[in-house]
C-alpha cells in the first residue's frame, strides 16, 4: 500500500470528521481494555511472565543468526524450504515462483501483516492469481478494497451495517432480499462462501506468530480456524514471516503464548493454536504437499544493535493499539501504512524512514499506557523519543517549531534572564486576563486557543513573589 504517513495530519482530520468511523471506534473503545484487565487479574504470575517473555526475546535477538540457521536446518530436515528475502520484492517473487510452479489459480490466505507489508495480494492479482482472504475481518476489507486498520482486528473501523452492505454488493449470487441484520447471519454467509474457496484453492498462505528453532515449526493463533483450512487443504503451505518471529524452543513458545492472547483479545488462549512442521508425510491423512517459509528481513536486521532493537521483541498482540488514546481517537488508517498505533509509530520509521513517517512518533503524548501493557515490555515512548532525536538531528521538524524551541531553550538556560521574562509575562498576561480569568484567543497560541481557552496567570511569577516573601522575613 502506498504510504500516506506524511499526510498524517490530513488523515487525522478526515478520521475525526468521519462519523461512521467515530461510531465504530466508540463501540470498541474500552472493550479490549476491560477484557485484558480481567484476564490479567486472574493470573498472578502475569508480571513475572512478562519479564520471562522479554528475556526470551532478548536472548533470541542477541543470537538471531544462530537461531535462524537452526530453524532453517530443522525445516529442511522435515522436508520444507526456507526462502531468505531481504526485500518485499524478493519475498513477493519467492511466493509467485511457488504458485507458478504449482500452476496455482487461487490462493487462500490466513491473516498476515507481512502479507500487507509486501503487498502480496496486489502482486498475485497482477500476475493472474486470485488471492482470497479467509480471516473474516480480512475478507470483509478485501471485498471493500481497504487496508486493515488494526493488526488483529482488521475491520474494526467498520460498523456492521457497512459489512452487510458490502456482502450484498459482493455476494450477488445470493438472494438479495435475505436478512443480514445481525453478526451471526453475516458470519454464516461468509463461512458458506469461504468454504468453497478453501476447497478450490491451490496454495495456502498464512503468517506466523512464532517460528520455533528447536523443531522447525511455525505457529499461528486464530479464533476462526480459517488458518488451519488454509494451510492443510492445499498443494503448498507458504508461511510469511519476518525474521524476528523466531524463538528458541517449544517451551519458549508456550511461555509467550500465555502472554499473547491475554494481551491481545483478553482471552486466556485463542480458540486455535496451530503448529505446522513440514509438509504432509506419507502416513498423514492431511496436510499440504509442500511447506515453505518466506523469511523477510526488510530493514529489521539493520535495527539490531541500534536504539530500536527492543522493537523486535514485538509479538503483534495489539495491546498498545488497544490502550492508546491517540489510536482510539483516529483509528488505524490515519497512520498511513501497515502498522498503526504505538508499535507502528516506532516500526514504520524504521522500515520506511523517518522522512516518510516522522509524524507518527511525534503524535504521542508519551502517556506511557502502551509500555505499561506491552507483554514484551517494549519501551515504546522512549523509542518514539529516539525517532524525534533523529528527526531533530536531520532538521526535519518544521522550521518555526525549531526556532521557537531554540528561543525558549536560550532563556531556559539563563535563569536570571528567564526569571525577568517570566515575571514580566506573568504580569502582562495576568493583567490582560484579569477580567475573565482566561483568554479565548492569544497571539502565537492558536494551536491552543483554537480548541480550548487559555487560563490566565494569577499575575505574578512564583519566583518574584517568593523573593519578596524572603525579603520580608529577613
Amino acid at each position: 500500500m502506498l504510504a500516506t504517513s506524511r499526510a498524517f495530519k490530513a488523515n487525522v482530520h478526515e478520521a475525526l470528521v468521519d462519523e461512521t468511523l467515530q461510531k465504530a471506534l466508540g463501540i470498541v473503545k474500552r472493550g479490549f481494555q476491560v477484557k485484558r484487565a480481567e484476564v490479567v487479574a486472574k493470573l498472578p504470575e502475569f508480571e513475572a511472565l512478562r519479564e520471562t517473555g522479554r528475556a526470551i526475546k532478548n536472548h533470541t535477538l542477541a543470537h538471531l543468526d544462530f537461531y535462524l540457521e537452526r530453524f532453517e536446518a530443522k525445516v529442511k530436515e522435515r522436508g520444507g524450504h526456507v526462502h531468505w528475502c531481504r526485500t518485499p520484492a524478493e519475498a513477493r517473487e519467492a511466493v509467485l515462483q511457488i504458485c507458478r510452479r504449482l500452476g496455482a489459480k487461487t490462493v487462500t490466505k490466513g491473516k498476515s501483516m507481512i502479507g500487507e507489508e509486501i503487498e502480496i495480494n496486489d502482486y498475485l492479482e497482477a500476475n493472474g492469481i486470485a488471492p482470497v482472504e479467509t480471516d473474516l475481518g480480512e475478507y470483509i476489507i478485501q471485498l471493500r478494497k481497504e487496508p486493515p486498520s488494526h493488526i488483529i482486528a482488521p475491520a474494526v473501523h467498520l460498523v456492521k451495517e457497512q459489512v452487510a452492505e458490502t456482502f450484498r454488493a459482493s455476494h450477488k449470487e445470493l438472494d438479495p432480499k435475505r436478512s443480514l441484520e445481525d453478526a451471526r447471519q453475516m458470519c454464516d454467509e461468509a463461512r458458506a462462501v469461504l468454504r468453497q474457496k478453501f476447497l478450490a484453492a491451490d496454495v495456502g498462505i498464512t503468517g506466523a506468530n512464532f517460528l520455533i528453532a528447536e523443531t522447525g515449526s511455525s505457529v499461528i493463533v486464530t479464533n476462526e480456524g480459517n488458518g488451519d483450512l488454509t494451510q492443510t487443504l492445499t498443494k503448498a503451505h507458504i508461511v510469511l514471516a519476518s525474521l524476528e518471529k523466531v524463538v528458541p524452543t517449544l517451551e519458549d513458545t508456550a511461555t509467550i503464548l500465555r502472554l499473547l492472547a491475554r494481551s491481545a483479545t483478553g482471552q486466556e488462549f485463542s480458540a486455535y493454536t496451530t503448529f505446522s512442521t513440514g509438509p504432509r508425510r506419507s502416513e498423514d491423512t492431511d496436510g499440504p504437499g509442500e511447506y515453505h517459509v518466506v523469511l523477510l528481513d526488510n530493514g529489521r536486521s539493520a535495527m539490531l544493535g541500534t536504539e530500536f532493537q527492543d522493537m523486535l521483541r514485538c509479538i503483534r498482540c495489539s495491546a498498545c493499539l488497544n490502550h492508546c488514546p491517540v489510536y482510539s481517537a483516529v483509528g488505524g488508517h490515519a497512520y498511513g501504512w501497515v502498522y498503526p498505533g504505538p508499535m507502528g509509530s516506532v516500526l514504520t520509521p524504521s522500515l520506511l524512514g523517518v522522512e516518510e513517517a516522522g509524524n507518527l512518533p511525534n503524535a504521542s503524548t508519551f502517556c506511557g499506557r502502551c509500555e505499561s501493557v506491552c507483554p514484551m515490555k517494549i519501551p515504546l515512548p522512549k523509542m518514539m523519543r529516539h525517532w524525534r532525536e533523529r528527526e531533530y538531528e536531520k532538521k526535519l521538524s518544521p522550521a518555526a517549531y525549531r526556532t521557537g524551541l531554540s528561543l525558549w531553550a536560550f532563556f531556559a538556560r539563563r535563569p536570571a534572564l528567564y526569571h525577568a521574562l517570566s515575571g514580566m509575562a506573568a504580569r502582562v498576561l495576568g493583567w490582560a486576563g484579569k477580567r475573565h480569568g482566561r483568554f479565548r484567543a492569544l497571539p502565537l497560541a492558536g494551536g491552543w486557543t483554537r480548541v480550548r481557552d487559555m487560563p490566565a496567570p494569577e499575575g505574578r511569577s512564583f519566583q518574584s513573589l517568593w523573593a519578596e516573601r524572603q525579603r520580608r522575613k529577613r
Partner: protein
Amino acid sequence: MSEQPVRVGLFVTCLVDLFRPTVGFAAAKLLEAAGCTVEVPRLQTCCGQPAYNSGDKEDAKAIARQVIAAFEGFDYLVAPSGSCAGQIRLHYPEMLADEPAWFQRAQQLAMRSYELVSFLVDVRGMSEVEARYEGAATYHDSCSGLRELGVKSQPRWLLRSVAGLSLKEMPGAEICCGFGGTFCIKYPEISDKMVREKTAEIAATGADTLLAGDMGCLLNMAGKLQRQGSPVRVRHVAEVLADMTGDVAPIGASAEKR
C-alpha cells in the same frame, strides 16, 4: 516523622511559576507542615521536557545539568508535578548516561527527587491534612506521575481527610487528557478529541470540582471545560490540601466573579 527538619529544595516548575504561584506556596506550606524547611533555588527554570521530548538532546542536557547543580545541597528535591519529577528522577540519568561524572550526580539527585503528594505520604508519612473544601471532586491521574512514579493512592489518601470534600471517581481517570506538552499544539485536533472525551467523563461523574497534580493537564482540561461553558471548578490538588482555595479563584475562572 523525624524530629530533625529536612531541607527540601522546591522545584517550582515553569508552569506553576508563570501561571499559578499559589500552587508553589501551597507546596511550601504542606512541606513545612510535614517538618521540612523549604528553599527555592533561583538557578532553576524548567525541567527541560520541551527540549527533551522534541529530540533536542543538547539543550535538554544543558538544562538538566543546571537543575542538578542547583539542587545538589538539599536532602530532597520536591516538585508539585509528576511530570517534572519523573523527568528528573527517570530521564536525567538516562540522558546523561554517557557522561560518567554527570551521570553519577544525576543519579544522586534522581534518588532524592519526588512528586509533592507522594513525597508527603510515602516519605514524610503524612496521613491527613487540616483543610476544608465544600465540593464533590473528581481526581485525574496525570500520566507521568501515575505510570512513572506510582502516584495514585497518595492524593486520594490525603483528600479523604479534607472536611466537606467528597470524591467521585471517573472510570477513565488514568486515561491521558491530551495535553502531552508540545503535543497539544502540534496535533491540536487529536488533543481536542482526547480532552473532549475527558471533559465528558468529568461531567458524567457529577463532580463540581476537578483536581489533579500537574499544571499542564490542569490548564488543558480547565481551558476545555471553560470553552464548553462548564461550571466545574479546576484546581491543583495542593491548593485544596493546603487549605488555600480561598486565596485564589479556580484555574481559568474570573477573580472578580468569585
